[in-house]
């Protein structure tokens, strides 16, 4: 059982909940950038939470089904078509042997998730099927999908058709976002003006944004003068190479803040001034180029409450689709 890749889309990868415990040797978590949407896709087709799905960036693939299957597409507004006939997003539907799944133009968001009943059956690497392309690991030979690839599916255990995620639980994709951050790490290196600029600018996402990092443009941040500490390097934004938190925001040379996502480089010599809170990482993952973003400062308590609210949304969805 499986699916043949007729057209791979632009940067389609196999992802799951991620790979944990290896960041200390430079292997980042990887996994779906929008975890809620990929969780929803699996629930819709009756898969276990850890099943692997396809993450499609901006442009959907074209897939030929060589056996009947139940499919769900969630995440970005990337309208699915079966044999060129529109099918709903956020709802499971059946496809038959010989059917072709393709997609219309993306209208909002950035990444769509396709779950197949049975889940994608590729070998686990260090406990995950997620593709980490920089390290040539996971997925299909550690790379993005290519034309002609065969995607094997696992055995189906109780798939379901016609299940839908209630409107209220679907994420929205506004073109202006507010992303909550906790200031910290090396933010003391910013001047008061630099800090105000960081929190007061409508940052625009650049087209180079990818699974490693989301680079924004819009202003230049002012750093305090200093004598470089031994080993740090001469630029005011340099530090002795340090670990980078997932979600941390570094500002090389004071321009173009970069939010690291789930394929993060694990460390380096640029000073980070803030970190996106865990609950808002999915929203970063759904940001397409040119979107404007404000970084909004919150404290630890607010961030933890947001995390609990997010967990509650996962639990509610599980109940709704039980």
């Amino acid at each position: 059982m499986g699916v043949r890749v007729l057209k791979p889309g632009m940067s389609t990868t196999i992802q799951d909940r991620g790979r944990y415990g290896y960041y200390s040797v430079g292997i980042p978590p990887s996994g779906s950038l929008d975890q809620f949407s990929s969780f929803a896709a699996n629930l819709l087709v009756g898969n276990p939470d850890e099943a692997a799905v396809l993450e499609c960036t901006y442009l959907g693939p074209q897939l030929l089904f060589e056996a009947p299957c139940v499919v769900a597409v969630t995440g970005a507004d990337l309208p699915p078509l079966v044999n060129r006939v529109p099918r709903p997003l956020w709802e499971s539907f059946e496809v038959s042997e010989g059917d072709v799944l393709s997609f219309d133009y993306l209208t909002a968001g950035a990444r769509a998730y396709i779950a197949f009943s049975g889940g994608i059956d590729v070998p686990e690497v260090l406990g995950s099927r997620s593709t980490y392309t920089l390290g040539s690991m996971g997925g299909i030979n550690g790379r993005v999908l290519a034309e002609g690839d065969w995607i094997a599916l696992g055995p189906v255990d109780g798939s379901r058709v016609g299940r839908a995620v209630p409107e209220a639980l679907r994420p929205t994709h506004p073109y202006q976002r507010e992303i909550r951050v906790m200031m910290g790490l090396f933010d003391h290196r910013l001047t008061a003006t630099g800090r105000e600029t960081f929190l007061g600018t409508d940052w625009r996402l650049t087209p180079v944004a990818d699974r490693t990092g989301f680079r924004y443009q819009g202003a230049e941040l002012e750093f305090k003068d200093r004598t470089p500490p031994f080993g740090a390097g001469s630029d005011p934004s340099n530090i002795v190479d340090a670990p980078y938190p997932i979600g941390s925001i570094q500002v090389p040379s004071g321009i173009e803040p970069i939010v690291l996502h789930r394929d993060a480089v694990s460390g380096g010599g640029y000073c980070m001034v803030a970190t996106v809170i865990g609950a808002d990482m999915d929203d970063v993952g759904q940001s397409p180029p040119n979107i404007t973003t404000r970084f909004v400062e919150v404290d630890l308590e607010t961030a933890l409450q947001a995390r609990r609210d997010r967990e509650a949304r996962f639990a509610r969805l599980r109940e709704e689709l039980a």
Partner: protein
Amino acid sequence: MTGTASARYSFGGDDHVFVELDGEMSLTANFKAMAITQALEERRLDGVIDICPANASYQIRFDPLVLPPTDLVELLKQIESDVGDATDIQLDTSIVEVPVLYNDPWTHETLMRFRTHHQTPDSTDLEYAAEINGYTSVDSFVEAHSGSPWFTSMVGFVAGLPFLFQMVPRERQLQVPKYPRPRTDTPKQAIGYGGCFTAIYSVRGAGGYQLFGITPAPIYDPTQQHPDFEDFMVFFKPGTIAKLEPIDRAAYDRIVEQVEARAFRFKQRPVRFSLGEFLNDPDAYNAGLLEVLRGS
């Protein structure tokens, strides 16, 4: 080799704690990071996801709904005070010989291709590094770079890339700035230098470190086909001690053949490292380490 600064704790969002032990690089700060993270590892705490020792800092990724952030910070501060200056702590690690072809044709081709990104368009990276460190020739610079061993002070950036800090007193540390504009390409297994660190590029890709040479030995093997990678796909671990061994082109080619036949193994020996003993007399201690590598 100072290291008296007090640690600075900061949250990286709601699920990371970042601890800067010193704003400056030193073996003392690095060893402290290693000792604290090892002590935390041994507690096997619920909710801890990733423990990342780094050059002069470390980072913990955790689930704040399982392990309350403030509890974790308190525990880390307790461990920090237990570890103290870490000079009486021993680290069981290994010393490994890394063959290096300095001034090789492949990194040379790359650095020439990116000359406009460099400080000195008219010299090579090695010539530039030798000059700004006061060496009269590339050969004497290479001698300094390859003479004393290196301590793996951090693994990361990309999968399996070691940052190496040379085990010499501060006044003998080599320092070279990174490229003002990073390259978009670096050969796999290139030996790079930035700030006070040697890096071995585990995969091909972008990079801003000065390029000195290349090793024929793989250090990252995601498909685990080479003998040294049977247990794990990453060779270097924080704390691994490396001796860079200059080789000529003939030796390079011989090792490449061994690698292609899946027959190459690093020369390595287990060793117990003591920061206190090292700080007492670095040169004598290093001579002892190299003895271990050569001997028996």
